[in-house]
C-alpha cells in the first residue's frame, strides 16, 4: 500500500490522533498493514520487540503460559488499542505472548524504524512518548486492580 494510504490509516488511529502531518508521514514510513488468523501469534514471549501493532479490528489476547495451567490470558485488546509497549525501552523484548483470538487487522509499525526516527527528531519522540505513556499508566493501574482480586470472597 502506498505511504499516502498508510498515512491516512495511521492518522485515524487514536494513538496518533493530533500528530502534525510531518509526524504522521514519518510514522507512516514505519508502518504496514497486517492480518492475523484466529490463533495466530503477533509475537511470543522472549522475542525481540521489533514491531508494535495498532489494532483496527478483531481481538488480541495477551497471555503467559504457566506450567500446569497452560495459557493464562490477563488482558484482551480490540480495535483502537495498541499491542506492545516493550518496544519503547531496552531490552526491547516481549514479556508475554500476543495471540489473535479472532481474525485481526492491524497496522504494524517497525519499532526500530520508529525508535530511530524518535531519536533523530526529539519533538516526534516526545509526541510519541506522550501517546504511549498514558497506555502504560492505564494498564499499570488496571493490573493493580486485578492483583487486588476484588471479586474474591472477603478474607
Amino acid at each position, binding site marked *: 500500500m502506498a505511504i499516502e494510504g498508510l498515512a491516512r490509516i495511521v492518522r485515524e488511529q487514536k494513538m496518533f490522533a493530533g500528530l502534525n502531518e510531518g509526524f504522521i508521514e514519518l510514522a507512516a514510513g514505519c508502518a504496514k498493514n497486517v492480518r492475523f488468523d484466529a490463533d495466530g501469534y503477533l509475537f511470543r514471549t522472549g522475542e525481540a520487540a521489533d514491531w508494535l501493532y495498532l489494532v483496527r479490528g478483531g481481538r488480541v489476547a*495477551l497471555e503467559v503460559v504457566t506450567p500446569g495451567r*497452560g495459557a*493464562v490470558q*490477563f488482558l484482551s485488546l480490540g480495535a483502537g488499542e495498541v499491542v506492545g509497549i516493550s518496544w519503547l525501552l531496552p531490552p526491547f523484548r516481549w514479556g508475554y505472548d500476543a495471540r489473535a483470538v479472532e481474525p485481526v487487522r492491524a497496522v504494524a509499525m517497525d519499532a526500530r524504524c520508529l525508535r530511530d526516527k524518535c531519536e533523530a527528531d526529539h519533538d516526534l519522540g516526545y509526541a510519541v512518548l506522550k501517546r504511549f505513556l498514558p497506555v502504560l499508566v492505564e494498564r499499570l493501574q488496571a493490573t493493580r*486492580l*486485578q492483583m487486588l482480586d*476484588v*471479586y474474591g*470472597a472477603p478474607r
Partner: protein
Amino acid sequence: MALPAEPAAPDGDPLLPRVARVLRRTRELPDTVTLELATADGSPFPAYRPGEFTMLYVFGVGEIPVSISGDPADRMRLVQTIRAVGPVSSALSRLSAGDVLGIRGPYGTAWPVAAAEGRDVLLMAGGLGLAPLRPAIYQLLANRQKFGRLELMYGTRSPDEILFLHQIENWRRRLDFDVEVTVDHAGGTWRRNVGVVTRLIPRMSVNPRDAIAMVCGPEVMMRYGAIALHDAGMPESGIWMALERNMKCAVGLCGHCQFAGSFACKDGSVMRYDTVRDMLALREI
C-alpha cells in the same frame, strides 16, 4: 426443619422477623446460591423496589443483610442470592426446599429506575454485585420502551465465576440490550474480554452525558468505576452505587452501619455518587 408455630410478626414492628419457607435452592457458583422464598402463610411479600435488601435470619445462628435479586413484579416469590463467607451466610447456603427462616424488610433505598425514564441506562456490575442489580434489570426490560440505550458491563474473576451465566447469555441475544462481560483472567479458550471492567468504558454504547449509571460490586471497583465514568463525561449526579456496611438493625437505630453522617441501612445502600464521593476515600469510614 419443621415449620414453627409462631404467628407472623405484627405489622409495624421492624425488628421482628416473619417466617418464610425455602421453595428452591439453586447453586450459582461453588460458594454462591440463590434461594427462592415464600411466606409461611402463603401471603404475598411486601412490595419492594430494586436495590432494597432484607435481613435473613437462620434460627439459632444469626441474621445478615442480603440483597434481593429477583423480579419485583413477583411478590409471591422472593429471590435472594447469597455467597457463603461467614457462619450465617454459610448456614443460609445450606438451606434447602422446605426449610424455614426468618425475614425482615425490605429495607433501604432503591436504584433510580423511574428517574431513568427517557434516558440511557448503564449497569456496571462486579462479581456478586450483579445480584442486587438484577431486579433493576427486570424492571428495565419489562418497560424497555421507556428507556434509551441499555447496557450492562459485568466484570468478574474468571469465566468459571460468571453469575447468572445462562441469563446473561439470554440477555446478550436481545437486540435492545448491550451486554459486555470481562474477566480478570482466563484460560486460552476464552474469546471475550479480559481486563478490569473499567476498560469497557471507552467502548460503551450509552451516551455518558445523559445516562444514568447504576454501579454495584466491590467498593474498590465502584470507586474506580465512578471515576472512570466521570472522566468519560458522565455527571457525578448521574452515577449511583450500592454501599454496604455492617448492617444489624437495618432501620437506623443501632449505628453499626454508620457511614459518616449517614446510615448505610436506611440512607443506602443505594446512594448517589456525588453525595458519597469524598467519603469513599476516607480510611476511617
